[in-house]
């Protein structure tokens, strides 16, 4: 019998549908999802995914980008309506159609971005929308008193009448949790709550989570930090490409296994993947181009050393959220470093903004080409010419004829499929947009090209073309930093690899070490 939580199921037959690995559940299932499917135009975001959460457990939801984690959360919280499958809360079928409705039913979510109003007081943030009233107005005394009690319950002693914006993100998140709990306390979903917290803040959050767990709450915890998964969770559900990989007890799942399952690589078995080492890159002596010593930025990436040589492709690997993009941004001067130094050709330089970096021969193709890369209301020609014009300074206008000449050359060289130079970039396919950005930076003749996920969302053929291009550029003596979440790709392209975990550089691999299992073991930290 599962009557552990004091519920009596008079009308409902008791099933043990979810007993992973034949274990009889000790506690009752509080939230179950069965056969959830969700399709977006052209994408199967979720396919027949089952999920089960017990009362009094912390359950991690893991998966790489596009695995379907956020879609699943959205279905559970009523942001999206699933195309098939059913969700049951305490064995009653529910179909929330909005976050508010889900919250009324007992499912609350706290996001990475704190969804509270920083201008309002702490207490008001907890109670707004359902304020206790007295006579004919809001009873502020009662609001403050009850807020103090709620926060004291989470070992938090702060002045609740102060505006929320005066406190750190960690406290803001606690307040968000307090609000969520006060509305309903059955299921709490924490969607990457630790991304912007530092170590002590994370510990504090974990204490609160443990306390809530003991009170019988079911907590779904989404995070990219492997250490945190092992520090706090009881079970793990892994998704990949919208499908369920499995449900595991955290204690029984080695880290390497977890990473292998997330990345979709069979870990056991020693069939070596065909490794295409770059032509004779090891023996040759390359001149160092960029060296970084102890560069870091609090809350973004811990200090790291890095060297990139002319004519080599340096890969940056790690799981999503491990600090790959942050590393690129700090080198390129987008984020301000608060420690360390950068040397270019042995000379100390200050890169405080992208313009500095461009002047020193750096180029950066950002991860999110839609919002940070292309300007889709400008033509192919204008997009290509942008960086060169910026490098020359706005006073020295590049003549139209010259612009067309350059653009034409690169459209042919990179085989950009476009109806013409004056076609708007927004009308091009993803792969061709990516090539336009590449062209933009290539014409500035950079000495170091930083590519952040250059092949994301691009069809296989174009992917291979871009990879080939990268190798060709390196062969011509350009230094390349290559960031990709696809391991195969990185292995194919890179001469050396820096491995990141939890926002710090943990290792550097080269030569024979650039191999799937070594990389996965390094990421897992065994």
């Amino acid at each position, binding site marked *: 019998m599962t009557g552990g939580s004091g519920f009596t199921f008079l009308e409902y037959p008791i099933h043990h549908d979810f007993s992973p690995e034949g274990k009889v559940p000790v506690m009752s299932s509080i939230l179950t999802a069965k056969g959830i499917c969700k399709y977006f135009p052209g994408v199967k975001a979720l396919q027949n995914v089952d999920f089960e959460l017990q009362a009094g457990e912390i359950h991690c939801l893991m998966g790489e980008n596009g695995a379907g984690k956020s879609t699943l959360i959205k279905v559970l919280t009523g942001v999206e309506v699933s195309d098939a499958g059913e969700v049951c809360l305490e064995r009653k079928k529910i179909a929330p159609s909005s*976050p*508010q409705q889900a*919250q009324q039913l007992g499912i609350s979510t706290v996001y990475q971005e*704190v*969804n*509270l*109003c*920083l*201008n*309002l007081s702490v207490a*008001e943030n907890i109670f*707004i*929308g359902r*304020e206790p009233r007295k006579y*004919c*107005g*809001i009873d502020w005394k009662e609001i403050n008193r009850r807020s103090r009690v709620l926060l004291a319950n989470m070992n938090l002693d702060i002045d609740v009448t*102060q*505006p929320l*914006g005066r406190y*750190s993100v960690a406290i803001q998140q606690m307040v968000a949790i307090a*609000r969520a709990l006060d509305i309903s306390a059955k299921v709490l979903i924490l969607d990457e709550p630790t991304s912007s917290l530092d170590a002590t803040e994370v510990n504090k959050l974990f204490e609160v989570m443990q306390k809530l767990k003991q009170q019988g709450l079911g907590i779904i915890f989404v995070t990219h930090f492997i250490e945190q998964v092992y520090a706090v969770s009881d079970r793990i559900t892994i998704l990949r490409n919208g499908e369920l990989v499995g449900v595991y007890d955290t204690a029984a799942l080695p880290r390497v296994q977890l990473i292998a399952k997330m990345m979709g690589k069979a870990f056991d078995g020693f069939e070596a993947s065909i490794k295409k080492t770059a032509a004779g890159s090891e023996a040759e002596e390359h001149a160092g181009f960029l060296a970084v010593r102890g560069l870091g930025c609090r809350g973004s990436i811990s200090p790291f050393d890095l060297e990139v040589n002319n004519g080599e492709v340096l890969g940056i690997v790690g799981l999503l959220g491990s600090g790959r993009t942050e590393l690129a941004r700090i080198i390129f001067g987008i984020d301000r470093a608060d420690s360390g130094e950068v040397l270019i050709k042995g000379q100390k330089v200050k890169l405080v903004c992208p313009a500095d970096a461009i002047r020193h021969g750096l180029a950066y193709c950002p991860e999110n080409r839609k919002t940070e890369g292309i300007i889709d209301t400008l033509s192919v020609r204008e997009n290509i010419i942008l960086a060169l014009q910026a490098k020359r300074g706005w006073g020295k206008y590049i003549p139209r004829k010259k612009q067309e000449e350059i653009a034409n050359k690169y459209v042919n060289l990179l085989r950009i499929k476009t109806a013409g130079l004056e076609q708007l970039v927004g009308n091009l396919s993803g792969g061709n947009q990516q090539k336009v950005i590449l062209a933009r930076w290539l014409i500035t003749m950079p000495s170091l090209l930083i590519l952040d996920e250059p092949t994301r969302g691009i069809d296989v053929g174009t992917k291979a073309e871009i990879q080939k291009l990268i190798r060709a550029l390196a062969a011509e003596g350009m230094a390349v930093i290559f960031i990709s979440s696809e391991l195969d790709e990185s292995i194919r392209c890179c001469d050396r690899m820096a491995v990141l975990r939890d926002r710090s550089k943990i290792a550097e691999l080269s030569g024979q070490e650039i191999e799937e299992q070594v990389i996965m073991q390094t990421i897992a930290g065994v």
Partner: protein
Amino acid sequence: MKALSLNNKYVNLYITTLLFCALFALGSVLYTGFFSGQVLLNMFIDNAFLIITAIGMTFVLIIGGIDISIGAVIALICMLSAYLLEVWHLGPLVVIPAMLIVGAVFGLVQGIFIHYFKIQPFIVTLAGMFLARGLCYVISIDTVLITDPFYQFMATYRIPLPFNSFISVSVLIALAAIAAAYYILNYTRFGRTAYAIGGNEQSALLMGLPVARTKVLIYTLNGFCSALAGIVFSFYMLSGYGLHAVGLEMDAIASVVIGGTPLTGGIGFVTGTLFGVLIQGVIQTLIMFQGTLSSWWTKIAIAFLLCVFIVLQRLIVARKESRKSLA
């Protein structure tokens, strides 16, 4: 630390209040006859309509919006009431409620455009401004004088106060509006939702607050306030004319901003707005007492003050940000 932690959001409010007292003291020292209750009360009497419309504007700025149609709406209300009273010979009992409804509906429609069609409030209310101004001239291109006895009475009646001073009925209306706005902003869910929307609209939505309804209602309320101000203004001017209250929306916005409500929303005080209006009043009075300066110096003084206050608000925000990054 405690001494420093004087709540940032009140800084502008304190400064405004202090500045008003300082200016009043300055006038009292410089000019004989300045230091009297009646001089102070005259500021209320002359600016009652501005206080009322600035209160509506305070709500709009709290949610991070803007409304530049109010001057034109006030002109339209004056013109329309003059026309209905004088040409159609309707009684004030019909005209006044009708005008309040016209103003509220005007605001409601603007609010609907702003929220549901997601058009910038500046553009919507710019269109509203042209529409209202244009309608004035459709009604009449000349001044229409109001001879209705009730309006005449409201214009001239003085409510006697102790110490030989007096106020007008308009002042009572303005004070009632302040009290009502204070209550709404601090003790009703509607008022608090307005602050939440100004703080972060997306968050407010995710917290389950009725964002759409509140936003539309705020513009409706502002329309209502400008209609009320229009009626008070017609008591004051006793006429309808297409060029009444030109640029009044900017005076109202200036008062609200000087009163400590930033254009970015989320913060705002009706008491601040009152002092914002009174500061303009005290500057006007100072210039009047001085005697030789043109009244346009009021505008220059306001320009200077606005500049100072906007820079101050920016500095406060900047300080907050730098402390955040350290924290």
